[in-house]
Every structure is written in structure tokens, then in C-alpha cells.
């Protein structure tokens, strides 16, 4: 799959964070707030190497799941990271306020976009359970 097609597929499979508003979900304001902070540059994790930030917080039907049960969720960072050596540290630094407020631990998972586009099939199930917090090329709000 080409990178362009992979990007389209990610946009189709992942649910925009604004759609969380329709659910009774403890942390919806935290996730929407985090997304706004990232989108508008208040959370300082953005460089041009990051293309998408997705949170694996939905169940198989696309509904927010109870995050207290596991105590953590996966935060998927998709981009072209090259030789960036402090990605996890930089993301962790930018998420401290979010984590202090929610007490739900983000497990940071960087995925290289080229690898993802070649192996899209193995990620489709996962992507369907994600909400999109950041899209470099599109304003979510």
C-alpha cells in the first residue's frame, strides 16, 4: 500500500476525538482538551516528523471503553522518526498534565509510517479502536 493510501485508510478507520462528545465517557473532556492542546501547539511535542496521534481507547464497536479497568491506554504516534532518539521522552514530557488529571497511564507507541503502510493489514483492527487526537494535515476541530 502506498503511503498516500495508508494515510487515507488511517483517516477512515480512526474516529475523530470530537465524536467522543456523544458518549457518557469519564475522560472525554480530557481527551478533547489534550487534542486541542496538541493541535494549537500548547503541548510541545510537535515536529514535522509526527503525522498522526491516535489513542487506543475504543472497544471493537467504536465505543469508549472503561479505562480504569486496565489503568492504561496506548497512545500511537505515527510519523517518520528517522534517528530521533528522544521521542518517547518528549511525548511523556508533553503529557504530564493530562496524566496528572486522568491518572490513566499513556503507553507511548511510535510506529514508523513507512512500516505501517507496508504492513497495514496487521494494524487495521487496532486502528478501528482508536480516536484521532492530531492530524498534521487536517484540523480536527
Amino acid at each position, binding site marked *: 500500500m502506498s503511503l498516500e493510501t495508508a494515510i487515507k485508510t488511517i483517516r477512515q478507520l480512526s474516529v475523530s476525538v470530537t465524536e467522543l462528545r456523544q458518549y457518557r465517557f469519564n475522560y472525554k473532556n480530557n481527551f478533547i482538551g489534550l487534542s486541542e492542546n496538541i493541535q494549537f501547539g500548547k503541548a510541545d511535542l510537535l515536529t514535522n516528523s509526527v503525522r498522526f496521534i491516535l489513542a487506543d481507547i475504543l472497544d471493537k464497536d467504536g465505543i469508549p471503553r472503561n479505562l480504569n479497568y*486496565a*489503568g*492504561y491506554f496506548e497512545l500511537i504516534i505515527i510519523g517518520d522518526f528517522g534517528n530521533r*532518539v528522544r521521542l*518517547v*521522552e518528549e511525548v*511523556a*514530557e508533553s*503529557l*504530564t*498534565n493530562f*496524566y*496528572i488529571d486522568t*491518572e*490513566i*497511564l*499513556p*503507553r*507511548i507507541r*511510535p*510506529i*514508523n509510517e*513507512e*512500516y*505501517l503502510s507496508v504492513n497495514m493489514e496487521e494494524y487495521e483492527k487496532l486502528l478501528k479502536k482508536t480516536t484521532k487526537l492530531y492530524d498534521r494535515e487536517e484540523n480536527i476541530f
Partner: protein
Amino acid sequence: MTERRTYFSIAERYLNSAQNELARANPYLEVVAFKFYHSYECLASSLTVFFNRKVPKSHPKKLNTFLALAKKEPRPLNIHNVAYLNMLFENQRNKYLYPEIESTGNIKAPQNQIDRTKIDNIRTQVEGIHRNLRPII
């Protein structure tokens, strides 16, 4: 020895062991990193017991409990520091022990996960938490 003092003692032993390894020529940095992590986790457990709470078994819940309790009074710790270390260790802990299959398909060995700058940063932060918890535990 009380449970909280026992956890604190384990934390100090791992902290000392990590410091000794770092003082050696060509230390095994991934081993040192895991020792700092284990020391940190035991410091977290000692504060958990201090607040009469049961120490959770799962790693994420153990770390989340530490953060929640670090927000209470007495508050000897910087909660931003605790939040950062919780996220860092949750993400890195297993990588200090096992090979990581990266998203590029490359296999990364534990010794390639950490360098001297990163370990010095972790050391400063874990030593600070140990220093600040010592008077109350």
C-alpha cells in the same frame, strides 16, 4: 521491619547497586536503568503502604496509585516529575530487559536503548525522589 520500611530498604539496595555499577568502567547501562526502575517502583510501593493502601500487582496500577498518592498531603514530591517517570518507565521497562522489534522491523538490543545522558537524567530524578521520601518513610 515494617512493610513500608522493607520496600524502602529494597529501593535503597537497588539504588546503591545501580550507583556502584555506574561508578565502574564501562557499566552495563541497561542493567543500571532497570535497577533504577526497580528502585523507583519500590519507592512508589513504600509511599503506597505509608498511606495504608494495598500495593497493586499490575505495573500500570502500581504507578497510577503512586501518582494519585503523590498528589495528597504530605506532598514531598514534584507530581510532574512522578508523572514523567511513570510514563517513561512504563514505556521503557521491558526494553531494558528484552529485544525490541521496532516499528521499522529492526531488532534493538537492550544495551542500545539507553545512553549515558539518559541514564544520568534518570539517576538524578530517582535519587531526588528517594531523598524527598526518606524523611517520611
